[in-house]
């Protein structure tokens, strides 16, 4: 005979603070890729301390740099020159 121990649907808020290191490699002026490793995190929901020093988040990412303000200004300048 099967006995149900629990069957629950729960939603809740929590927060995590973490610290770590990032190694980033730049491929070009615009693009870079990186890998991150958090060596410590703390879950704020816990009533007891669960700071981890070895089991943090691991990430990889891709980064695209842009300078939209500068480019916008340059377009305006070129339009003004054409009008002149």
């Amino acid at each position: 005979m099967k006995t149900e121990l629990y069957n629950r649907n729960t939603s809740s808020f929590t927060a995590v603070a973490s610290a770590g290191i990032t190694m980033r490699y730049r491929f070009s002026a615009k693009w870079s890729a990186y890998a991150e490793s958090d060596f410590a995190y703390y879950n704020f929901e816990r009533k007891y301390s669960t700071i981890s020093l070895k089991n943090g988040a691991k990430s990889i990412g891709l980064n695209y740099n842009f300078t939209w303000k500068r480019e916008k200004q340059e377009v305006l300048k070129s339009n003004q020159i054409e009008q002149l």
Partner: protein
Amino acid sequence: MLNDYICFPLFLFRRITLLVAIIFIGIISAARAQQASSEKEIQSGKSAIDIRLSVLPYDAVGTPEYRMPALDVPFIHLSYIQRLSDRANLQIGIGYGMNEAQQAGVSRHIKADSIYMKETYQHLSAVAIPFTFKWTPFNPGKRLQFYGSASFTPLYRHIKARATESLKVDPL
């Protein structure tokens, strides 16, 4: 009772989606490696967009009551980065993470000629809004850079969890 409890996974955790995404990012990165770089352009970049795949430990996202071994949670994040100085930047983003696992454990040592089985299932999904500060003491003009980072991540999570146990007498 727990000492005799032999646990084994019935299903592999579903991380195929994460692996495909990692390979996809690797291909894009390799293609972009051929582009020329310029120090002036890098110094003028004030903002950046960022896509990130991460794996958070279950303890950081889940709850101890439903803890299952090795149920880490893969996340995908989209972020905006504002450069504060040559060495520091601030990042805000939004991310979604999900994982699902099912396990069963069997033991024949609870009572003579009996089989004890416990089955657990969990589906965890979460939305995260990470705030991250990064700083480097090294030359920011180098291709290879190292940063120290600190982040604070509010999370909204939904956990669907169930568990059953049964004790069957072995007819043999």
